[in-house]
């Protein structure tokens, strides 16, 4: 009587030959070319989406400067602000920046696939 394990081994071999025959594999040149193409796309995607660091530092610096200026303008004893147009613009810029921090965090988390 035949050993059933022999059938199984033979069948596994035949299945692999059928599923992964030479004609179902990319030729080595296409394989290498495709990887270069993917690496190039990945690099381009990254370089296109990187925000330069000096701009981040400049924006943070400006917001801090405006917030400090606003604090100097504030009448701390009377707890009021003499609301000139300039004060209003600076206050809007500072508070909009603070408001956008959680929104930016949510967008970053979604884009990186954590949410």
């Amino acid at each position, binding site marked *: 009587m035949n050993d059933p394990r022999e*059938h*199984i081994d033979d069948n596994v071999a*035949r*299945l692999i030959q059928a*599923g*992964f025959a030479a004609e179902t594999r990319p030729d080595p040149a296409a394989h290498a070319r495709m*990887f270069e193409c993917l690496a190039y796309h*990945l690099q381009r995607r990254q370089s296109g989406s990187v925000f330069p660091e000096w701009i981040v530092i400049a924006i943070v610096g400006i917001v801090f400067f405006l917030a400090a200026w606003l604090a100097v303008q504030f009448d701390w004893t009377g707890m009021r602000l003499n609301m000139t147009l300039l004060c209003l613009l600076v206050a809007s810029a500072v508070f909009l920046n603070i408001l956008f921090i959680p929104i930016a965090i949510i967008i970053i988390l979604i884009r990186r696939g954590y949410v």
Partner: protein
Amino acid sequence: MKTPDNQEDDLTLARRTAAGDQSALALLYERYADPLFAFICHYLGGSRADAEEIWQDTLLAAIQSMETYRKQSRFFTWLCGIARHKIADRLRCRGQPAVVFSEISNKQLAELLEKGPLPEDILARRETRLRVVEALAELPAEYRTALTARYAQQRSVEEVAQLLGKSYKAAESILSRAKAAFRDRISQQDTE
């Protein structure tokens, strides 16, 4: 069954690739590019030129949407999903009918595997070949390399040992464990 688990998790590699890490991209590419090509070839059932174009489109689309992979399925299944969409789009553009598959369950296939020599018509079926590719793609890299070298490329055990950088005995043992893991995968696929 114990399998080599020194492979970095696909999800981690996908995240690293999405963040621009080319070494992670290289690992994913080594693992899945060839099985994906085989999957597309069998799915289309012929034209190598078409398969190559769809393979390229699929891999580029995967790069573009790498951050959307969240392990809701296996990485290879996710790639095959993208490939299926690309194939369906192409057939629709050409006014060709969608590919229809006949049914063969993994249970049936597993039974046939043990019964006796597999009939030629089962081996020739597209569904069988697609399952083989999926099962192989999901095996650890060492097992897949050993099985494809030994059976698809008809190399001797000695050559497989050289390819893996192992002794003859170790290569024999890897081949035996790889065959068992492959059988397990073939019989598990549609229960997941």
